[in-house]
């Protein structure tokens, strides 16, 4: 029953997110601030993880190819496919559930604990629209983050492959260009947009509806990370079955 109640409350929150919009002059500032916090603030960690995981994928692929009949360009091909199809959209989203998700839950949760949300409601402001909608708009730029992860992942694979002595630059580039299916990019960005919506709303839900004090803010952040990750994994399975199955 508790799960059903939470799911119901979540969808009511989504509906309220689009009702009684905040004044544009105020909303604009909030959106820019959230872009800075959620998108620009995540670029460093995404770039770092993207580059090195790309390198690891290339090294692992190279080390596990022992059959001389397998073409050398497979390292580039496998790195590209892994990065574009799964690593960038899904793996980075799980990391973002930890970084951005906990930030959203704890910042909204702290506002709840310190009665700042009550202050908004007393003033007659739609607090859900004021707090959640700018995050949702800011995260529409999430595909930009994922594009960077894709680019740096493939670049990291190239660096590891060439400078680690696992293959030549020509072979790697040939692999990256080989058998490219444009729909795979569409699939990756459809997933990314869905995950962006999840990243904006589930952590906001756990922050907005939390009860208690500072300890509960920490617990809400953990719960929000767990459920955001679970929903991302489930939707990843569903979308992959629908779009590629």
């Amino acid at each position, binding site marked *: 029953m508790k799960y059903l109640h939470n799911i119901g409350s979540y969808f009511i929150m989504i509906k309220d997110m689009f009702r009684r919009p905040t004044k544009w002059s105020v909303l604009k500032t909030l959106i820019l601030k959230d872009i800075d916090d959620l998108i620009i603030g995540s670029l460093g960690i995404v770039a770092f993880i993207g580059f090195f995981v790309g390198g690891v994928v290339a090294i692992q692929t190279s080390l596990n190819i022992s059959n001389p009949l397998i073409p050398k360009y497979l390292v580039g091909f496998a790195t590209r496919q892994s990065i574009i199809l799964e690593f960038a959209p899904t793996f980075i989203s799980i990391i973002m559930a930890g970084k951005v998700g906990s930030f959203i839950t704890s910042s909204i949760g702290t506002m709840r604990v*310190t009665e700042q949300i009550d202050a908004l409601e*007393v003033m007659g402001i739609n607090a859900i629209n004021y707090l959640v909608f700018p995050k949702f708009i800011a995260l529409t730029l999430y595909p930009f983050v994922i594009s960077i992860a894709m680019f740096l992942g493939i670049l990291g694979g190239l660096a590891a492959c060439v400078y680690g002595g696992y293959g030549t630059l020509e072979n790697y580039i040939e692999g990256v260009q080989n058998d490219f299916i444009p729909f795979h990019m569409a699939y990756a960005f459809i997933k990314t947009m869905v995950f962006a919506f999840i990243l904006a709303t589930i952590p906001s839900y756990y922050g907005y509806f939390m009860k208690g004090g500072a300890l509960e803010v920490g617990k809400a952040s953990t719960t929000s990370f767990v459920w955001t990750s679970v929903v991302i994994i489930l939707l990843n399975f569903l979308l992959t079955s629908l779009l590629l199955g």
Partner: protein
Amino acid sequence: MIEVKDLHKSFGDAHILKGISTTFDKGKTNLIIGQSGSGKTVFLKCLLGLFEYEQGCISYDGKVFSNLSRNEKTELRSEIGMVFQGSALFDSMTIAENVMFPLRMFTKQSKSEMEDRVDFVLKRVNLDGAHHKMPSEASGGMQKRVAIARAIVNNPKYLFCDEPNSGLDPKTAIVIDNLIQEITDEYQMTTVINSHDMNSVMEIGEKIVFLKDGHKEWEGSKDTIFRTDNEAVTGFVYSSELFKKVRRMYIEENQ
């Protein structure tokens, strides 16, 4: 004027408010007092519309709150100022931005008009020059004054304060009490203060409602509270030796 009739509120099986009826007059500082757990905060949150109640009626100058449409409620809320117990300042904004916030949300004033108004109210609460400080850089007393400035910046008709003196030293608490009373007189607002600070009761309690276990036990003013024989009230108000002595002296002087 705010009128409350037979207000009932429960949380699950716990019946918190048990039929409270009272009125809060315009231009007066109305105090709700009572022990911790007596239902003061729940009562205040029902008045503000933050909690829905099962039974009863709350009307603001004749407008029944529960009968208002969503837009009418929003309009009414823009006439309400609230000072929260912990001040509830937006910690991502400077003091000036906090005070300007209701103006940005609800008025079409130009930036210079809003800045002039912010300057005026910050001067009114003796915070001139604190515009660019963050709330975390302000002391407890300053934060309370910023909260009062934010509450009155849009010229509200109703001012609510939830324990405005909690966590303040006695001297600062008196400054805050006097400020609330001056503002109430000046703007002729209906002010409702939730408090268990006895200094506030003696200083500014033009009307006092005493709650006990979710019902109204006693109603009066700072003058009549000295003479009441209600045991629950005297047990609460004169729990300290100092106040017992003050009461004895008051009665002796008036005999």
